[in-house]
């Protein structure tokens, strides 16, 4: 992009579409990490990244619509994510206690 055009655009504030693009990129990184990473904690962090990407898009849309409800949804998502983290980390802890591993490929005792 031409530096002058860039400065003009930024002068009006960062456009909403940039936030949405960032949110989409973060979400994709989260999904890719979930599929590719092998450490359970990292996988869990990737899920949190996905939820935060959603939060960012909620905020961007709320700004675009000039509404407060989008901001409220973010709080709901954050509360739910916190509850999920509490339960999830407890589950991960019991798994570690019984198996002494956090590698997702080694947790494969359930099969036919």
């Amino acid at each position, binding site marked *: 992009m031409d530096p002058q055009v860039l400065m003009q655009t930024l002068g009006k504030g960062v456009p909403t579409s940039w936030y*949405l693009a960032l949110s989409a990129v973060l*979400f994709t990184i*989260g*999904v890719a990490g*979930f599929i590719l990473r092998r450490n*359970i904690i990292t*996988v*869990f962090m990737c*899920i949190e990244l*996905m*939820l935060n*990407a*959603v939060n960012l*898009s*909620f905020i*961007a*849309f709320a700004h*675009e*619509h000039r*509404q407060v*409800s*989008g901001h409220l*949804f973010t709080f*709901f*998502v954050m509360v*739910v994510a916190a*509850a*999920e983290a509490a*339960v*999830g980390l407890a*589950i*991960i802890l*019991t*798994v570690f206690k*019984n*198996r002494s591993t956090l590698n997702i490929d080694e*947790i494969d*005792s*359930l*099969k*036919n």
Partner: protein
Amino acid sequence: MLANGISSSFVPSNLEMLRFAPELILSVAGTLLMVLDPFFGEGKKSPKIFGHISIVAFLLAIFGAVEANTVAGPAFSNLLIVDGFATYFRVLVLVIGVFAVLSSYLYLDREAADTCEYHALLLFSVAGQCLMVSSNDLIMIFIGLEISSIASYVLAGYLRNDRRNNESALKYFLLGSFATGFLLYGVSIVYGVTGTTKLDEIRTFLAAPGVPTGYVALAAALMIVGLGFKVSGAPFQVWAPDVYQGAPAPVSAFMATAPKAAAFAIFLRIFVTDFDKIGSSWEPLIWISALLSMTIGNFAALTQTNIKRMLAYSSIAHAGYLLVALAARSEIGTAAAMFYLAAYALMNIGAFAVVIHICGKGEKNVLISDLAGLGQKQPLTAGLLTVFVLSLIGVPLTGGFFGKFYIFRSALESHLVWLAILGLLNSAVAAYYYLRLLVVMYMHEPGEATESLEPLSPGLGLALALPAVGTFVLGVAPGAVLALATAGAALTK
């Protein structure tokens, strides 16, 4: 006061509280259980009192749900909507809750597990499902879904020192949260396009001519991924066999029925009403998912030796049949799915109850071969399992038959001829592995597992007999339930 008994201030009116009664009763009961734990928890290892309290709570909540339906309407600034559809599913998940408690008494006693937390989590999970099915707002649906899911994650790993439980809980948690991320991203795009998350307002927005629907179609696709995980429809079914196999048997019975029914309820509510206008863009996805679920579920079930794992694959196949009804995109299809979910819940709970009966301490006997000679040793239990197996196959005079019949009829009426034919062929494949259970049960000599089997306990007996009666009633006189489903399926379009 505004019309419909809605409060105009922040304080909800009495009518709104009544419409919210089932969720209220369940959450109060769940909290009460945890308060009572120190008083009754001492002494005995797994007191039954908490189970009794939660059965009373479930029955009260069923009464509340029926009462709420007499004053049907919206509540809490239109976040909730009580209609025939919501009431049908509320009663369904509450009934499943009763059966889940009944089938847990013996199991928890055998494992000397803590009963208070278990029943409290069950109550919270069902409260979340009730909230989901009566939501009129995508964010409320998300919150209900998470209340239900987070409680189920803990339940799946309830026996903390059991390695299988750990693994089941971990997989359920990771894939469940992953799916939630997709659902939520879909919700945020819908919000971005329409500026609202209320289902009726989204409907109004999309109904206007000339609205760009490309992004809504993208949101629909993301939500299909999220909900597809929750209902274990292919290609998002990979977690189901491991989770159902590893979780405690009564929890598997619960997870295979109640959360699935609630997830299908919101699937139907969102897709056949709000997203009906862009139906041509998502129908092929559901079509493919339905076919894959039926085929993968049935063919993978053929080779299983573990009963719980086999039932998990069979539940994937049943999710496929239900997706056929969703692909039909009609009122008849919705009613058929609703009827099928009731029949499916009864027969699945019953089949899992037999597993709970024979599995023994530490779930040693969960192989199909452990059923050997059950017909000779305990003819009554074997007879009840036969009813459920016949219903799972879809033999006439059982609920499963009419469920499949209505689903395939709705598919034909919506001109999904190939899907109906492939579905019927799949049902024929399914008959093979279900019949294998009957062969082992009646034609093999009793083995170690059946020789040392205790008589049927009263709680488990009820959890077997009542679903069997229900399955039979649905198969002989489906009219009453079908009428309720049809009335509920008349969702506002």
